[in-house]
């Protein structure tokens, strides 16, 4: 008997063994991951190293969208403020690198803390800070719903944006350059291919985390909270803490993606915190397919490719992005994943 509860694997699917669990959606998922994984190697082979960084960019924005998808797609929380977490992650990487570079102190009170270019430490700090920020934002905004939730999350993100713009110690409006990419022990992070692999593994882990989460009791309860919170409440479970935990996890994933993004670009600025960024991540989620595990990957591939290919031809590439988005919303309600892989198992 097929065991659908075992869910999608994070890794690529083998094509040769047509076991019952290999359905169309898993095949598409595997192909998407394999295409993303193979492209930088192909680019390396033909000497087009620019495209390696493009693949890293896809992996990173896909990961940011995986985080947002957990909130929007699975939790029904339409956050228009995920740039706050994306940017906070970026600033953690940037500020830490800034102090490591000029050997100055990040904090002198209550503890003395210097900067660091140790990537795992930076990611951990980004996770903790994003979790704390999301706890505050979530605890306040989850008391509302619908349009009010959208507006409150947007307001929090804008507060952070204006704070970053007006804080001169870390570049203010001009942003903060990262002169030397942060380091990962045993790896040469300056090598584009190595850095892509780091980003790809991070994306894979975030997909695996979401898949595991949604197969658990917690995931079922989160789905219940989205579909009908009254029914969940009459079974003795308050929807609020479940949503809050999902919101925090979502922010943590997006925050780590932000830290990777800052290191990829060697720069962090207020634009990472702006509402355009929140909109961009949301567009990726919608393009790919809301509530589909691999939707963000499909959406990120389409988005970044359009941005690069059309952006090279015309300054008004956003116009075409808008048309594509319109097409997806009107004719392919399940997004790209809906188009490619059909309706979701439980939809």
């Amino acid at each position, binding site marked *: *008997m*097929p*065991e*659908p*509860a075992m869910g999608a694997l994070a890794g690529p699917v083998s094509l040769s063994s047509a076991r019952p669990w290999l359905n169309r959606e898993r095949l598409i998922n595997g192909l998407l991951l394999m295409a993303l994984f193979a492209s930088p190697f192909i680019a390396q082979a033909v000497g087009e190293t620019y495209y390696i960084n493009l693949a890293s960019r896809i992996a990173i924005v896909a990961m940011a969208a995986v985080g947002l998808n957990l909130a929007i797609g699975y939790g029904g929380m339409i956050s228009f403020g995920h740039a706050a977490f994306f940017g906070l992650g970026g600033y953690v990487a940037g500020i830490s690198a800034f102090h490591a570079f000029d050997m100055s102190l990040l904090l002198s009170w209550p503890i003395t803390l210097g900067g660091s270019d140790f990537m795992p430490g930076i990611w951990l700090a980004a996770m903790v800070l994003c979790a704390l920020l999301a706890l505050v934002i979530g605890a306040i905004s989850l008391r509302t719903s619908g349009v009010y939730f959208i507006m409150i999350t947007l307001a929090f993100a804008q507060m952070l944006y204006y704070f970053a713009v007006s804080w001169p110690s870390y570049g203010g409006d001009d942003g903060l350059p990262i002169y030397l990419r942060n380091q990962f022990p045993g790896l040469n992070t300056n090598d584009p291919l190595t850095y892509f692999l780091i980003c790809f593994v991070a994306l894979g882990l975030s997909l695996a985390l979401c898949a595991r989460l949604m197969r658990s*009791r917690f995931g*079922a*309860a989160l*789905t*219940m909270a989205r*579909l*009908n919170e*009254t*029914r*969940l*409440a*009459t*079974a*003795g*479970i*308050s*929807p609020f803490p479940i949503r809050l935990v999902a919101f925090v996890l979502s922010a943590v994933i997006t925050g780590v993606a932000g830290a990777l993004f800052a290191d990829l670009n060697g720069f962090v600025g207020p634009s990472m915190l702006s509402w355009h960024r929140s909109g961009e991540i949301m567009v990726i989620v919608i393009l790919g397919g809301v509530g589909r595990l691999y939707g963000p990957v499909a959406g990120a591939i389409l988005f970044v490719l359009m941005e690069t290919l059309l952006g090279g031809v015309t300054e008004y590439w956003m116009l075409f992005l808008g048309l594509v988005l319109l097409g997806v919303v009107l004719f392919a309600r399940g997004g790209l994943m809906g188009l490619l892989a059909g309706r979701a*198992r*439980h*939809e």
Partner: protein
Amino acid sequence: MAPVTKSVRTRASAKPTWETEMLRIAGLETFYGPSQALFGVDLDVAAGEMVALMGRNGMGKTTTIRSLFGLTPAARGTVEFESRDVRRLPAYRIARLGLGLVPEGRRCFPNLSVRENLQATARAGEWGLARVERLFPRLAERATQSARTLSGGEQQMLAIGRALMTNPRLLVLDEATEGLAPVIRKEIWVAIRTLKEQGQSTLIVDKTLSELLPVVDRCIILEKGLTAWRGLPSELDDTIRDRYLGV
């Protein structure tokens, strides 16, 4: 209102003492916005008892249940569960005290599998997956299917199973057999009788009197948002049926 006092008195000797009294609703008044739906509902369920809540459509049965669970908060009156005032508690706290609701219209979660539906809100106790699947073997057969693919009757079984998995001390069944095929209806009545034999305290709303009356201990009839009659199923004669139930 003669029938009320009379039947209450006949029942008085057999009436449970306050220690075994599980649910007590008195003088319940509930509004939907400015319009009043309940004008003073009195209702009680003792431990191990199965009580029928009856009345024609629109008389306040579902509103009473909604007020009991805090979904449509009561404006006035008493709602006590195991001597504890629950009137101002949020729905999830009320449910956690030991109340389980099977809402009208077979409400399960279509996006989740049968087993996910059962397990997501489960709480520790005598009712577990194995026992629910013994009560409804069809649910075991369909464990990994999504609830959307179940028939109406199977969805109703799932809704009852889901409520039982929270191990409620008082189960509330709102129209559990309405709109189902006769075969499935029979299966659900078998399950309800099993629950009764096992001593599950239950408040049940149903319109199939031929199945309902043999299984319940007492009947409470609502009319226009008021408790109009209460008594034993055997006391529910044709006059009362014509007067309050229109059958």
